[in-house]
């Protein structure tokens, strides 16, 4: 027998090879197409926002861990801060001043995550907390959208800006939206529209989502019910009055629905753990998004809807639990 110390532990002694780090890496890979798309659309500005958000999240995470007297490893290397950083960047307009990006990173990591006790304990999606914080703090900067494809290698503040399709719809109405872009749907699919880094190419986002589904990092429930509910809700309005309300296809392709449904509302920590709970969560997100978009004063409601449903997650998890393991009533028959 060897002289090295034997492992003594409680069962089970096997683990599958998945780990928090691996999950985070998978999410990063899934985000790659959308990240590339954002850089293609917004050029160096997008790169700056991405890099600052990621480095900012890592730095603030390290500082927060130091203050809370926690070890840097494995927390800093598990990739969760990087994922938060990329997701934060995905939720910001490309022309955002550099220091606001850093403020966002600070809010995401400290206010969104570490004050609750760090990874796994945060009730709200950190990137969305930061987005809403920035959106409310700096409404002008957060609603100034550089035109995609223009001035790709510029860094100045003088880039051309334009409202998002949803913004046009909210302030100028459906007719103005339809006349603003003759190739609207194609542009929505490829990402040639104004918006946050990650609110652009629906195709790139769906690709990432399929990858996540394939690797079983997310399940279909939340994305499908989220997008489906938005489609159904806006579809009813469209059927009733198609001269005022945009069609449901436009609604699911524009704004943050794809990004939100695939990457933000599927954040494990802040969503229900059961399949049924996920269905309810996705439905709630879709409904709130639809209500805010069509009946509220903001043009877009994805971030708010996800944060609101994050707040309901503990309740959902408390009241929707798997059915107990037993026969469902009735006399047992001999087979």
């Amino acid at each position, binding site marked *: *027998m*060897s002289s*090295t110390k*034997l*492992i*003594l*532990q*409680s*069962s*089970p*002694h*096997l*683990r*599958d090879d*998945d*780990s*928090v780090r*691996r*999950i985070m890496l998978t999410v990063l890979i899934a985000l790659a197409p959308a990240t590339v798309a954002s850089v293609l659309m917004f050029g160096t500005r997008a790169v700056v926002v991405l890099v600052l958000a990621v480095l900012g999240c890592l730095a603030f995470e390290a500082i927060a861990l130091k203050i809370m007297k926690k070890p840097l490893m*494995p927390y800093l290397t*598990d990739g969760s801060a990087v994922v938060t950083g990329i997701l934060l960047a995905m939720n910001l307009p490309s022309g955002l001043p550099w220091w606001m990006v850093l403020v966002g990173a600070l809010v995401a990591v400290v206010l969104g995550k570490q004050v609750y*006790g*760090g*990874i*796994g*304990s945060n009730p709200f999606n950190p990137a969305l907390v930061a987005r809403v914080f920035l959106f409310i703090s700096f409404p002008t900067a957060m609603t100034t959208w550089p035109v995609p494809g223009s001035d790709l290698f510029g860094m100045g503040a003088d880039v051309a800006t334009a409202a998002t399709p949803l913004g046009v719809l909210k302030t100028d109405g459906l007719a103005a939206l339809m006349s603003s872009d003759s190739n609207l749907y194609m542009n929505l699919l490829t990402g040639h529209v104004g918006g946050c880094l990650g609110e652009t190419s629906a195709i790139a986002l769906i690709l990432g989502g399929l990858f996540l589904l394939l690797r079983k990092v997310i399940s279909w429930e939340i994305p499908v019910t989220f997008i489906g509910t938005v489609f159904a809700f806006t579809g009813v309005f469209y059927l009733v009055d198609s001269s005022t309300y945009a069609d449901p296809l436009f609604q699911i392709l524009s704004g943050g629905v794809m990004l939100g449904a695939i990457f933000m509302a599927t954040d*494990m*920590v*802040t*969503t*229900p*753990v*059961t399949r049924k709970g996920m269905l309810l969560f996705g439905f709630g997100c879709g409904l709130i998004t639809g209500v805010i978009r069509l009946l509220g004063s903001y043009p877009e409601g994805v971030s708010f809807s996800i944060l609101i449903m994050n707040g309901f997650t503990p309740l959902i*998890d408390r009241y929707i*639990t*798997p*059915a*107990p*393991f*037993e*026969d469902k009533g009735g006399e*047992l028959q*001999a*087979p």
Partner: protein
Amino acid sequence: MSSATMGFPKGGVHPPEEKELSLGAELVTVTPPKKVIVPVTQHLGRPSAVVVNRGDEVVVGQVLAEATGPVSAAVHSPVSGKVLKIADGAVIGADRVPVIEIMNNGEDTGLDAFVQKTVSWKDKSSFLDWIRDAGVVGLGGATFPTHIKLMPPKDATVHTLIINGCECEPYLTADDTLMQWKPAEVLAGCCIMAGVLGISRILIGIEDNKPRAIEAMTVAAREGTYASFFDGDVPSFDVQVHALKTRYPQGAEKQLIDALIHRKVGAGKLPFTAGVVVQNSGTAYAAFEAVAARKPLIDRVMTVTGKGVEKPGNFLVRIGTPISEVVNAAGGAKENLKAIIAGGPMMGKSVKTLELPVVKGTSGVLLLTGEEIEEYRERECIRCGRCVEACPVNLVPCDVAAFAEFRQWDRAGKAMECVECGCCQYVCPANRYLVLYNRLAKYHWRRLQK
């Protein structure tokens, strides 16, 4: 044999099987050692009472300790020789329990009394007593006295005997081997138990990663070879061998019932409520020996495997043999040994030494290297929900763990349904000690109920 592969509907995991390591080698009989250590109690239930004294000469099969009530089992001497001492000793999972040490005189006096004879079905009324007197317990690992499971309560209508040949734990191949080598004997044991229960329907569930066992059992069932062990007016049995999906924990009693007859036996309920009795295939063999040869349970088939042992395989071992002897029979342990697990890797216990005796419930010993096992450090739960997906009994393991972590025992009552199969912990990307939390929650919940 049914063509469609069946399985339990929800949860479970599929770890690497690693069965080929120990499969294929011959069933080796391990020479009884110079000294055996026989724990006084080797079953689940009331402790047995020692009936020999220090210095007594004993023969093979002599009762060393007798049952102390209905839910109890006798222990017999696996060798002939002299009782050295009756004292506290270490066994798997406990450091100080009463054990009987016997110096083997090497003569196996009394062994020749246990000769296999044809079973007369007219003795059916005695089968149960013989099984009980032989000290047969569940050999799958649970070690619940077998005769109790063959005595359904008055109000229960039992219609089916389910034989568990799943051996869903990775690495282990003891049941597989037994079914391959002694299919007729195993089937005869099944018939004996069905006879005791007064029923004719026998369902045998075997995971589909054991094609040879399935083949052997199917052939034996079809050709009725087991009938040659009986004479008299033997009733006809409806024996079906079912291939089941290879998915851990297919061999857990309630999952097996669910897979075979689609009945969910709820928490705290016995299989009787679904009209079934579940017995392990190894137990069936032991029951056969108890009835056909009147042989008490003094040996069993166990697997010694893992990359930390030279020649993995299956071994017929006398109860009380130190594990080290069995390992020696398997060529000895390798230098890079990292862990010793008694039982399967999912539910077995890690032990710190090989100098522990084989008991009735020892289905195998794993000698694992760093390639196969590592020490995991627990991290924060990220609420990924994989444990919920993996749990075969519909629990939310991460919640139970959270209640346990924050000592909210009053909210953790659901832990009582946990079968400690370890699926949740196996899939947990944060390496949470979910099974441990569940055990803690069970303990405290029981305490609160008092």
